[in-house]
């Protein structure tokens, strides 16, 4: 090993005795600086996203309680319990049905509305605003209003009875599938405007010349929609499908309020999030089991997302 004389002039370097020129940040500084800028965001991400997720995975294998104490590792006991819990099957079916009904409605209807309101004509802003208004309304308030409309003596049953369409009030808030469908109607009504805005942005990027060229080639409105508009908004459509899937599987307040927190008679209309809430709340909440349910829900949410990603990949090819 040789020891370099640090005082000796280096070939090509500044002459001895000449003040050393500032060569900018050192290699270490260059490495550390970006991380320092990232540190607040990473800290935030770790505390509010990564840590809770890891902690949920950890708790799913314990008998964790809100107050802590006597916590022990229970292995796959919580997951084994899920397999024989009929409430889970019920809630899972409700959540998936809710998603499957919402998905086509909230993917297609907002596109049709966006096509209607994209035209530039006097007064069109009013219609755009009108369609968007339900989006900004509180989900809780909207659910309460719909509850009043759909109950046995509510507006919908009252009108239907007055017009002799039905003799007895329809059990919108007590029958399992009618509760789910009522919640779907509310969700679709409330979500239309939000997804319409995404489609409007996508439609804005469709070149006018493409439509004109298609029209010159003799394509009618339907053909132009299928050949020009649809391919142009395909990306937005997939994004919306993903958003709808995630939001629909997480449905809570709509069904919770419409059923007064009970999930209907026998908890038949309960959704996965309601079930998780039922198990995790209060002093004696079963956080271990609720965590295991959350993991199950995460996996279930991942499935349609992977499917949509695959569809997207295939269509890109």
């Amino acid at each position, binding site marked *: 090993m040789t020891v370099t004389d640090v005082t000796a002039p280096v070939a090509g370097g500044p002459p001895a005795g000449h003040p050393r020129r500032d060569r900018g940040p050192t290699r270490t500084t260059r490495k550390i600086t970006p991380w320092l800028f990232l540190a607040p965001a990473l800290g935030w991400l770790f505390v509010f996203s990564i*840590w809770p997720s*890891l*902690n949920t*995975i*950890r*708790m799913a294998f314990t*008998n*964790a*309680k*809100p*107050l*802590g*104490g006597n*916590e022990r590792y229970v292995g796959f006991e919580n997951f084994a*319990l899920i397999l024989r819990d009929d*409430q889970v099957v019920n809630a899972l079916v409700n959540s998936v049905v809710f998603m499957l009904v919402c998905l086509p409605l909230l993917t297609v209807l907002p596109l049709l509305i966006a096509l209607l309101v994209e035209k530039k004509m006097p007064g069109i802003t009013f219609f755009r605003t009108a369609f968007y208004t339900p989006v900004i309304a509180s989900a809780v308030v909207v659910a309460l209003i719909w*509850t*009043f409309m759909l*109950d*046995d003596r509510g507006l919908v049953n009252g009108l239907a009875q007055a017009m002799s369409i039905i003799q007895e009030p329809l059990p919108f*808030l*007590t029958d399992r599938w009618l509760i789910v469908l009522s919640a779907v109607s509310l969700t679709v009504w409330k979500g239309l405007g939000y997804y319409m805005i995404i489609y409007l942005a996508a439609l804005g990027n469709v070149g006018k010349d493409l439509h004109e060229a298609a029209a010159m080639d003799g394509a009618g409105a339907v053909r132009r929609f299928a050949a020009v508009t649809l391919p142009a908004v395909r990306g937005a459509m997939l994004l919306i499908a993903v958003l709808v899937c995630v939001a629909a599987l997480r449905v809570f307040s709509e069904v919770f*309020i*419409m*059923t*007064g927190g*009970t*999930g209907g*008679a*026998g*908890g038949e209309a309960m959704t996965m999030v309601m079930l998780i809430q*039922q*198990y995790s*709340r*209060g*002093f*004696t*909440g*079963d956080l*271990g*089991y609720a965590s295991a349910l959350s993991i199950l829900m995460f996996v279930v949410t991942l499935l349609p997302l992977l499917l949509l990603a695959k569809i997207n990949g295939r269509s890109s090819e």
Partner: protein
Amino acid sequence: MRIQRTPLATAASALVATALLAGCSGGSPGEGSDPEGEVTGAIRFQTWSLTPTYAEYLNGVIADFEEANPGTSVELVDQPGDGYSEKVLSQASTNTLPDVVNLPPDFALPLAQQDMLYDVSQSTDMESTYFEGSVDAFRFDGVEGVYGYPWYLGTDVNYWNAEQLDACGLDSTAPPATTDELFEQASTMAQACPESYLISRVPGVGDFTLEGIDILNEDGTEFVFNTPEAAAIVDRYAEAYANGEMPPTVLNADYLGNSQLFTQGKVAWTTGGATAIADFEENNPSLKGNVAISPALNISPLYVQGVSVSASSENLATAIAFGEFVTDAENQNEFAHIANVFPSTQGSDADPYFTEDDGTPSAKARVTGFESLQTAQVLTPYSVNGAMNDYLAQQIALAIRGDISGQEALDKSVEKLNDLLARQ
């Protein structure tokens, strides 16, 4: 050395992080100070939705305590009614429970199980100060000691719409005294007045206790209420529902509750505390002079409020002294007069306010309630938590709708509740 970023290394890092995090959760209660030390220093006293209505009384009690114990100061913190359990849960889990805190026994139980509350029987002769039943409410299976000073008590009495009863073939001077009589009279009423109802509720755990059915086994380790007798009660409710003896809305989300329907004159029976009569008459003046009062059916329910002392209080001696002071006979009696509740202290029955009926409906309700307290019982065991209540209510709703039998509903409930109990 450069660490290869293989999936194995990533998984290992995640596991290490998880293991590290495992040690981060939860908080353990801190060590309290000497319970027999000097009564001095500052403490916090947390109440549950008592201000501003009773702020003057509470501030008066605090001023008296501070005057009697120089060097002490008590900060009153009142929490809103909604979300109180979540507030206490968050305080307990972060080890920031106030020194003295207003807790009903079902809130105190999990805290006592985690050693977060001080066993007040170590410092206070509970039996000579409070009613035995109210002290028992703060004794819990599997935990030695008493975990709260009983503060004020409540019970329910029956309120009947006398006009409706008399108009529908019943006698308002002889209202039902048992569940059996209730169903009989409900049937009579439904036949005479199809638009009026006597019953507008679904049964819960407490209804089985009312009929003398054990909810838990002797050790408190298993639910045992799925007996044929209990199933018969559920079936009887289902029959009443099917026969139109109950409003069809009792299973709906928009069910207003017994008390509101009574106030609106849509049902002829409800239960409530001694103060309820004033609310009924205020919200519906037509009920004035038209409400008959009788003791609760079968057994009167006992509702207990107490003040507990945090085991990790830095001024434990002061907290204990304040807990005793705020719940002593004099202060409890004064509060009972103001709030129309019942004191839990021995000797309070000598106060004619609780025993003499001056002819007003309010006094009648108070005296009826106070008499009932002598035999009142906690109807729902404290180990029945929210998830258990929800599941039972869901199964009973199915049975009342006629989808399953009462026995099926109770068998399923007991199986599920035992699962949940074993995991507590």
